[in-house]
């Protein structure tokens, strides 16, 4: 799953296995789970940063980009530039 770099998969990883990795009493496989959860969290953070930046730029600059903005849009809002 991780090879596909899926942000939501990583989100689920972090949330679901958080308790197992950090709060449950220790057992042999726990360090491995902990490392997976940590790496998922890092990946998730990376995705959050990238997506937030892109969405902000796109929403604020789409009108100014003219033709490029229209080609990048799936649906173009009516009545506003």
């Amino acid at each position: 799953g991780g090879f596909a770099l899926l942000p939501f998969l990583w989100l689920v990883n972090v949330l679901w296995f958080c308790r197992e990795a950090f709060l449950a009493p220790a057992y042999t496989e726990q360090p491995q789970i902990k490392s997976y959860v940590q790496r998922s969290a890092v990946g998730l953070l990376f995705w959050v940063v990238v997506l937030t930046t892109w969405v902000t730029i796109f929403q604020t600059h789409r009108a100014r980009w003219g033709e490029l903005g229209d080609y990048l849009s799936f649906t173009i809002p009516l009545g506003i530039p």
Partner: protein
Amino acid sequence: MNGDTGVIHVVEKDQDLNWVLADGPHPPYMVLLEGELFTRCRELMLRLKGTSRVSGLAVAISKPSPPRGFSPGLQCPNDGFGTGVYDSDYGPQYAHCNWTVWNPLGNGLSYEDFHFPIFLLEDANETQVIKQVQCYQDHNLPRNGSGPEYPLCAMQLFAHMHAVTNTVTCMRRNSIQSTFSLSPGVEVVCDPLSDSNVWSTLKPINASRKMDPADEVVIVATRVQIDSHSFFWNVAPGAESAVSSFVAHLAAAEALHKVPDALTLPRNIMFTFFQGVQETFDYIGSSRMVYDMERNKFPVRLENIHSFLELSQVQVALRNSSALWVHTDPVSGRNESVRPQVQVRALVETLLNSSLGVNVTLQEVSQSQPLPPSSFQRFLRARPIPGAVLADHRAAFQNRYRYYQSVYDTAENILMRYPEGLSPEETLDYVTDTAQVQSLAEVATVVARALYQLAGGTGNTSAIQADPRTVQVSRMLYGFLIKTNNSWFQSIIKQDLKGLLGTGDEPPQHYIAVSYPVNTTQLVQFVLANLTGTVVNFTKEECLNPERAPGADKEVQMYDYTWVQGSREPNSTSRVPFCVQSTVHLTKALSPAFELKEWGSTEYSTWTESRWKDIRARIFLVASKELEV
């Protein structure tokens, strides 16, 4: 999408505006403006445009029409992007109205971009409802020195437009949405303005083949043809601007068809009624016709054109003097090596001679004055053709044209009045106030005589009289300006187009639209067919399929056959339909820029109209700011 809402404030004088712009405690405001302020003061409109405290505007039309005149058009009509003939290469001193300002009253309001809806209140009762009845007077006026308090009377205007920015953007979005979207056609946001041009020839020609290069044609055009433009959507009566000249043109066409040697004249005459021309949007109709001629998609080619005569605003009787002015192009007139120079002189001479014996005097304007905005300019742009424009103004439109392109350009404007108590039939046939009807008929006579001579006719022109008892002109003016749903119009249209005439008593609007063709275009087509065509004895099937008619030969290709519903039999509701044979044709008038997909073209008109869903308005009481979502 959700409309624009604002607290109503009535602005009747300039001081009231300060409340809206600065003092009022409950912005945004919906301004109810007196018509007089709207017409008098362009700065007021610009101040409203510049503020964010205004969310909409409702204008109460002022009756009677403002005496000083009002025109929301440009001071220099049709000057954009050099779509006229005068630009930096051709007569630069005449470009951009450097020599003559044609519409000095124009304040250009129609071409401003307002970010809020503007509605017109035509009915004085509606205005009263807003002002008095339980609305403004009761709730919104300041009382006892303090400001008004909630609940306040508010108005919401819905006029959401789907297209934005400019034509290039909205056409691009149209094409993206239609190629990539799941439901193409739903997301179209704007449409190009289009309609049809109506044209007809004196001698029938085969419309599917091209004319022989040796044949020559004299074109007479009414530029201010069937469409008009005012600040408000679909309120464009265009009486003085548009209707007078094409009525004169129709009368001249009728007169010429009655001339005995019409079919043996050396040159043909083409009666053209342009659409979307000039006042409106950068010569849509004429640029399309020239484009078709250049690309051989039209039976007549530019080389076939011998000369060009255009009728501009010709309502002469309103003026103190019954004079028509002949405008010619100074650049081609001066150029000695080019053919037009001699022929322009000859053309002007012919025109001046045709006015002898008629009560209209023709005079030539100074030869250094440029052509007024006219569709002839588009033809000149393509090829130097000798031509002239007849207009009733010498230089600027001036008092003559006080209501150019505005809502006030109505029948009252051209003084059409009927005595009280006439039935609709009698009103139709009543020959109104003789002066302007007579003058229109005389203008038509002058034009008919001039065309006859230009086409090479050698007979006696004084026998050519357009509409001697001015019956047709009266009827046409009545039908086009006052009541379209009259018995004459009903009898000359096709049966399935009955809806064309509308149902009520409202005067017809001549607004250019995107559907094709618009009512007035078809009406002119039928009137022209009725006045210039002949009735033939075909049955309905033969009329609709003329190739199968008995005795028909290849001649039927030269004509257009229409099965019209005819007039009503006396004392019965059924009609007697018949078949009319005429040479009237319709061609599409869509700007070449859209055919070529050059949406940013500076050569052709690129006007489009946005789509919308709902246009409505409502007034209601607002309880408090907190409850407004």
